[in-house]
């Protein structure tokens, strides 16, 4: 398959801000201790150079195709069409199966690209990263093993328990795992710990697992990850002769939403939906739905974006069954796209996602990551509401659910 080349059609300004012209609100930027400024400048300059380096881009693409297996299929799901009311009522539903990548999620694409960039452009010897569901850690550690770089992973103590399988695989790939016991013991303090570690070791390169962090990370991660969307767009054209009517993806930090939807930003007749975790319900306050709950603008981990926080600016912990969505902020470009209304947001509760997990296993024979179940639930609801037989819907099935098995079996038994 000839993969369409990357095109920049939503650039931030030179300081890394996306500005909403109507409200004047800025998203992104680079808010970080002076100690890290030189590191970030190095990444920024390197990234610009990399995007002009045809050999680097071609070599990276070759690795993504042959090692990550990036050309995963888009499969039509007649079972989901039936559940939503049947093709004659709602049209066709397609699943982009990035769970079939090497290491079983969408994460290896940006992770491998970032590590490949660190090795070949920045000549780094060590990678520092953080993780929630450990999908990122597993992917980064795998890339480091293949590319012979040392790897340090920061993980919140609670997440380390929840996703022990991925954590164990990360360890087998040779990563040095540092369990973080700070504040909420989840992704957010792990990310802060990784940044602090990078501050102590400027020769290393920091790899962000999402489209978050200080400039240029949100730009770089979405640019690397968007190859998923470029392939998906071409596959949809091959399958149905045009772009889909809707694109649905789950949104924690926003990487898999960016990855699949970025190439559709300029196609006005494609509706893009980002799905957040409503946890125990938005009203309960125990959720990870930054955009849906209308969280205010704050400055979190180096960037200006919507943040779950209290009236004094202390970051509130997010709460969700899905470690991969357990984050109190959302990437700045996604917040900007939400502010313009280009990406519409919905939220799914933990309970709805857990039920969807069981339904997917029983009715479709697919074991999706719990994260993907938030989007599948919301997509089915939205598709039923749209009730348009002429439409074609694309859902990003962004990960496989092996590491959720123990908790989901317990859920199943507890609810029988």
């Amino acid at each position, binding site marked *: 398959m000839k993969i369409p080349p990357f095109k920049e059609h939503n650039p931030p300004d030179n*300081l890394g801000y996306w500005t909403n012209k109507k409200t004047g609100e*800025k998203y992104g*930027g*680079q*808010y*970080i*201790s*002076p*100690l*890290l*400024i*030189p*590191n970030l400048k190095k990444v920024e300059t390197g990234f610009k150079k990399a995007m002009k380096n045809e050999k680097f881009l071609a070599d990276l693409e070759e690795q993504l195709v042959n090692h990550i297996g990036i050309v995963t299929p888009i499969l039509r799901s007649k079972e989901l069409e039936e559940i939503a009311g049947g093709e004659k009522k709602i049209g066709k539903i397609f699943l982009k199966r990035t769970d079939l990548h090497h290491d079983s999620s969408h994460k290896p694409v940006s992770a491998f690209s970032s590590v490949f960039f660190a090795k070949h452009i920045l000549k780094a010897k060590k990678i520092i990263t953080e993780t929630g569901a450990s999908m990122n850690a597993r992917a980064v550690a795998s890339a480091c093993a293949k590319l012979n770089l040392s790897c340090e992973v920061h993980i919140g103590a609670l997440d380390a328990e929840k996703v022990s399988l991925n954590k164990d695989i990360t360890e087998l790939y040779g990563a040095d795992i540092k369990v973080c016991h*700070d*504040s909420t013991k989840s992704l*957010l*303090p792990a990310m*802060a710990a990784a*940044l*602090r570690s990078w*501050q*102590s*070791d*400027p020769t290393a390169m920091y790899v962000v697992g999402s489209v978050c962090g200080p400039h240029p990370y949100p730009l770089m991660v979405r640019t690397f990850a968007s190859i998923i969307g470029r392939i998906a767009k071409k596959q949809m054209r091959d399958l149905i002769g045009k772009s889909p009517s809707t694109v649905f993806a789950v949104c924690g930090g926003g990487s898999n939403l960016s990855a699949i939807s970025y190439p559709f930003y300029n196609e006005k007749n494609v509706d893009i939906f980002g799905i957040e975790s409503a946890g125990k319900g938005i009203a309960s306050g125990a959720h990870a739905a930054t955009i849906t709950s209308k969280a*205010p*603008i*704050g*400055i*979190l*981990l*180096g960037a200006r974006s919507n*943040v779950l*926080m209290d*009236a*004094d*600016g*202390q*970051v509130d912990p997010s709460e969700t069954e899905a470690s991969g969505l357990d984050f109190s902020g959302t990437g700045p470009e996604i917040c900007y796209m939400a502010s313009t209304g280009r990406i519409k947001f919905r939220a799914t509760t933990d309970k709805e996602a857990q039920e969807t997990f069981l339904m997917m296993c029983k009715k479709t024979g697919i074991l999706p990551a719990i994260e993907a179940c938030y989007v599948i639930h919301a997509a089915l609801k939205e598709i039923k509401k749209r009730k348009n037989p002429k439409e074609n819907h694309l859902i990003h099935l962004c990960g496989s659910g092996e590491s959720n098995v123990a908790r989901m079996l317990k859920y199943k038994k507890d609810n029988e």
Partner: protein
Amino acid sequence: MNKTFQRIFAKAKSENKSCFVGFVTGMDPDYESSKQILIELSKYCSVLEIGVSFNTSTSDSSIIMSANDRAIKSGAKTEKIFQLIKDVKREITSDTAFVTMGYLNQIHVYGIDRYIEDCKKSGVDGCIVVDSNNEAPEDDQIFKGLTKNDMAFIKLIAPTNDSNYIKQSLKKCSSWVYIVSYAGVTGSKDVNLNNVKKLSKMIRKQSKIPIGVGFGIKSLDDVKKVSKLADLVVCGSSIVEKIKEGSQNGLSNKNLAQFVGEYVKQIAKGIE
């Protein structure tokens, strides 16, 4: 230059000393103890640097992070830190400068103009905002607001910064500039005097601004060595450790203040 700092530097110069800066996280472990600690430390410190806690800071070591957690648990909020400074200032007689140290999110949420106004009202002499990048629009607003109100904007300069970044920082820096002695988080390594010498030289090429040095200063010997190279010597994590130690041993209020004060009194002698 801010008038309190002017007087402090003039006095230090006449006595041929440098200035000792003591850092504590505001309201660690609680309001009253923190107040007593600051009152006690004012006897030995020319400058008191008071941390405004942020639970997601990206530059502090676990020592300061734990202090932040203790302070937040005891109800620390930005407006309470201003109240604390006011209360302390009311009870001390020494000519001590007060500096707040925090992260931009707190100031952004509080409102930049309101923060500056309350700094002024509480008698704050300067502010350190760790993650306020020179190029950020908020940084300009803070710089203008502080300058207009005769307060110092104290910028951090690290061993990894180049001369261009130093130049940019010095443009916005007033009263003094803060050299971070090593690449790392607060209190995680020993003070690096070679970095201090190199950075002082780079700064001196561009400006006569007084130089403060922090990160890794934890003994009398460290203070003596740094004092020979700098106008201000900042000691933070080791004081915070003492607060934790005393607090864990059941001390509070004046007893805790005396315990911490004893330590600070000993190491602050190094500026002489």
